[in-house]
């Protein structure tokens, strides 16, 4: 196993990467394998510090918007974390896998801007994860129940504010971000986290 020279401080890591003569492609691939096999957070932090600024730069080029670029980073890197299990080393380098995820997320975002369609066709055009789809839509139907409201009350405050804002006060994620003074990406990830948590809790009760 390759040592990743981890540190909590991102700047230190960037310094190391810049100073390297050869491309760190193999290290990245090894790190992704560690994330895939063990949900290794240190390995993921290394991937994140390498890819996030580059994805941001790509996003700014694509959208001409800092906020949308950060959203692209968020979407791409969330998929890298959550779907790492679906990565196979024999199918190519980590850089290729991340690039295709970024390309897909960017394609869907551009389509939303240009045609106002949220059909997310990229996964059909360039299948990366096959059909596994998270059913966040069917979840919405249960939102009325009191039992769920109880669960929402018990969420950590940061997550609760986001869930309540989006689902009970009908704010858009952008409005909510402004209201709470946090980036839209953070709203999204808190929301995802909260929904996941609620689903797990409700699922357990229904068993």
């Amino acid at each position, binding site marked *: 196993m390759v040592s990743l020279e981890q540190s909590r401080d991102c*700047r230190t890591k960037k310094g190391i990467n*810049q100073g390297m003569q050869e*491309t*760190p*492609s193999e290290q990245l691939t090894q790190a992704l394998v560690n994330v895939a096999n063990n*949900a290794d*957070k240190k390995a*993921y*932090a290394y991937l*994140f510090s390498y890819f996030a*600024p*580059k994805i941001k*730069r*790509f996003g700014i080029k694509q959208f001409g918007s800092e906020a949308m670029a*950060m959203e692209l*980073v*968020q979407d791409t*890197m*969330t998929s890298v*974390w*959550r*779907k*790492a*299990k*679906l990565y196979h080393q024999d199918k*190519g*380098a980590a*850089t*290729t896998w*991340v*690039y*295709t995820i970024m*390309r897909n997320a*960017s*394609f869907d975002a*551009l*389509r939303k801007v240009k*045609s*106002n*369609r949220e059909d997310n*066709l*990229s996964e*059909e*055009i*360039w*299948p990366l994860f*096959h*059909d*596994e*789809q*998270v059913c966040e839509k069917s979840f919405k139907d249960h939102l009325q129940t009191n039992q769920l409201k109880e669960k929402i009350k018990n969420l950590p405050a940061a997550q609760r504010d986001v869930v309540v804002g989006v689902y009970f006060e009908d704010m858009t994620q952008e409005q909510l971000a402004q209201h709470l003074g*946090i*980036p839209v*990406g*953070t709203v999204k*990830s*808190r929301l*995802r*986290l909260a929904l*996941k948590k609620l689903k797990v809790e409700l699922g357990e009760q229904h068993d």
Partner: protein
Amino acid sequence: MIRYHPSKQLMHKHVAGELPVGLSVAIAAHVELCDKCRAEVEAIEAKQADMFFTSEMHVDSDTKDVSLAEDDLLFDAMLSDITSLEVETEVVPNEVTMFDYQDRSVQLPRAIAALKLGSFMNAGKVSRARFELDEGPMRSSLLHIKPGGEIPEHTHTGFELTLLLDGTFEDESGKYVPGDFIMLDGRHNHTPKTKDGCLCFTLVDNALHFNKGLSKLLNPIGKLIY
């Protein structure tokens, strides 16, 4: 054997995600049917990824220092948010979508099956339904032609792409088989006809222009196909 493939230039733009949706859907469908182009797409993806992620280090050092500290704060928050998410472990197998036309049942390529299809309109032996993609003047359709059907000789003011999905047809340039990716523009005249019937994905970016006297009056078919 498939003889007509997307050009290198189209493939590169496709991989970069720079093409209109209809065109990328057609290329994806072709790639699903053509092993050679699938390998090609994978090679281009690896190359573009490498160019983007590992050959651009020099750009990094000039431009990134300005908002670095601020970015680091955002990135740190994002990183800890993401890693507190649970990872996904399941892969659901792909579903196969069949399409029935005339007396046949055909498996549709995944990218095409995912699109919303309007209802079919008929003119003689030709039936056409539009995909709802909202791409302005560029229109993607599913077209089937009954045995013995023919489309009058025409040229194209823009371009016309035909991806043959089932059956065969022929024109002045020869005979086509399923998977053939046929890109025509204003330089081409053709009169496609099918002996045994066929099913195609088509993409046209402007109404067709009919060349011969009577067909000029038959413009409905031009609009139908467009």
